[in-house]
Each structure stands twice: as C-alpha cells, then as structure tokens.
C-alpha cells in the first residue's frame, strides 16, 4: 500500500475570496502580522502496490486533468510514502 498526497492551489493571479475571508478572521481572533492567506485543497490517495515511475506518471495525469483545473490551479505532489 502506498500513499500519495496531491496539493492543489489557485494560481497566484486568481482572486481567492475564501483566503481573504480567512485572513480577515485571523486578525479578528488576535493573530497579528499575517500578510496573506491562500486556501487550497489536499487529495490523499491510497494506492495498492508500489508507486513506480509509471504509476507516478498516472498520478500526474490524474492531477493535471481531474484533480486540478490547469486554467486556474497549480498542483504539486507533496508526498509519496510506501
């Protein structure tokens, strides 16, 4: 069994109103000095067997075509654990 984590974030130039709302709330809760908050998504995939190069390529394909919308989002494979 292997575990892959894919992070998806809005591209920097895309307005993130949810991140902005969180930023505002942090201030109200007394956490000062936070200059920016951006909100993203994390996908945790549990895979059977090992994650070899071919499998990893498949995960990239999945991340680029389904898990993220390349028009507005970037993705990164954060973690691969066996």
């Amino acid at each position, binding site marked *: 069994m292997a575990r892959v984590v894919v992070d998806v974030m809005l591209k920097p130039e*895309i*307005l993130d*109103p949810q991140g902005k*709302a969180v930023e505002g709330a942090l201030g109200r809760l007394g956490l000062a000095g936070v200059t920016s908050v951006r909100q993203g998504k994390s996908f945790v995939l549990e895979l059977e067997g090992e994650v070899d190069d071919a499998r990893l390529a498949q995960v990239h394909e999945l991340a680029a075509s389904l898990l993220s*919308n390349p*028009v507005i989002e970037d993705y990164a494979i954060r973690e691969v654990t066996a």
Partner: protein
Amino acid sequence: MRIGVVTFPGSLDDRDAARAVRVAGGEAVALWHGDADLHSVDAVVLPGGFSYGDYLRCGAIARFAPVMGPLVDAANGGLPVLGICNGFQVLCESHLLPGALVRNDSLHFVCRDQRLRIESTSTVWTSDYEPGQEIVVPLKNGEGGYVASEAVLDELEGEGRVVARYLEVNPNGSRRDIAGIANARGNVVGLMPHPEHAVEALTGPTTDGLGFFTSILKGLVEA
C-alpha cells in the same frame, strides 16, 4: 427542430430548459449523461444545476461523462451548444470555452433578477436579439465568477466573443463584467444567467430569455 437537453446526476434546470425549448416552438429531447449518443439532435443545451453536487469543482466530473465524448466532437464540428450556469462550467472544464468559473467574490450564493446587455448577436444562440439589447433574466449561482488571463480576455473582447455583460450590478466578481462568451466559431456559447427562467410572464421576471431559444430555432430553419 430537435434540441437535446443533457441530464447529469444533480442537474436541476433541465426541465426548465426543456420547457423553454417547447415554448419557443421546438422539440426537447432528453439526453442521459451515461449514454454516449447525441441521437441526431440539431443542438444541445447543458443545463444549470449542481452536477455531481459541485464536488471537486463545478462541472469537473460531469465533463468526463460518456455523453461528453460525442458532444465535444460534434461541437468542434459546428453543432450548436448552449451551456447555462453549471453547463457553462462544464464547457470551460472541457475546454470548449476558455477561462473558468470561480467562487463568487462575495462568498454567498446569490439569486437575483439581473440586467444584462447582449453584446453579440453573431452567435446562433443570440441572433434573435438586437445588438446592445438590455434584458432582465434570473441569475442564481455560488460559483459564477468568470476568470481568464488578460490575454484571453483581450482576445475575447477583440474578436467580439463576449456574448453578454452584467449591467448595474456585477453579482459575482466576473472579470470585465462578463456574463457569457462564445467560441471562435460562434456555435458554442456559455452563459451564467438563466434565460430558461424568463420565458413565461407568470413565473419569470420577464420573458426576455426566450430569445436564446428562438434564435437557435430560427437559425436551424434557415440552415
């Protein structure tokens, strides 16, 4: 004239789209998401709603439905396609239209009677309007903010592919107040507001939305 209306799991305004087709004088044909067959319809409407609950991203899962295979091919070959609200989201996710729809900048779902200006009557879905005509149709969305790169926005404006623009109030933060766009060929149109809810005086704020459906029917007759 046979206009297909696709139902995805979670589609909501398919019935209203079908009704609008009928009111305009056409025959509405129900198309099922799981059926990779367009059944020889003359045009297709992708209706509003919450396909797949809007999970992952609006329209992101629907875009991989079996019916979308033949639909994308047909659209690239000139088949008229109108995507309303969630349908517009599906069209962007499948890259039949550029850009994307994101969360309303207010972070609230909004349902309101929205004033629009029809910017282009060169598409098969808007030919029955006058250029610059102002109409009022319902708008209801939580993820209706149209975004695209500056280059794409300039291209859309430059090529006259902005089909409708918000007036008075920008309800969702869409760039350049864009409410609807077309592809280069003009056969594929995506629109955030809901013309199918403005076809009957009894249940809509106006009957201004009927023009989208009469346009396509007239266009099909002439074709």
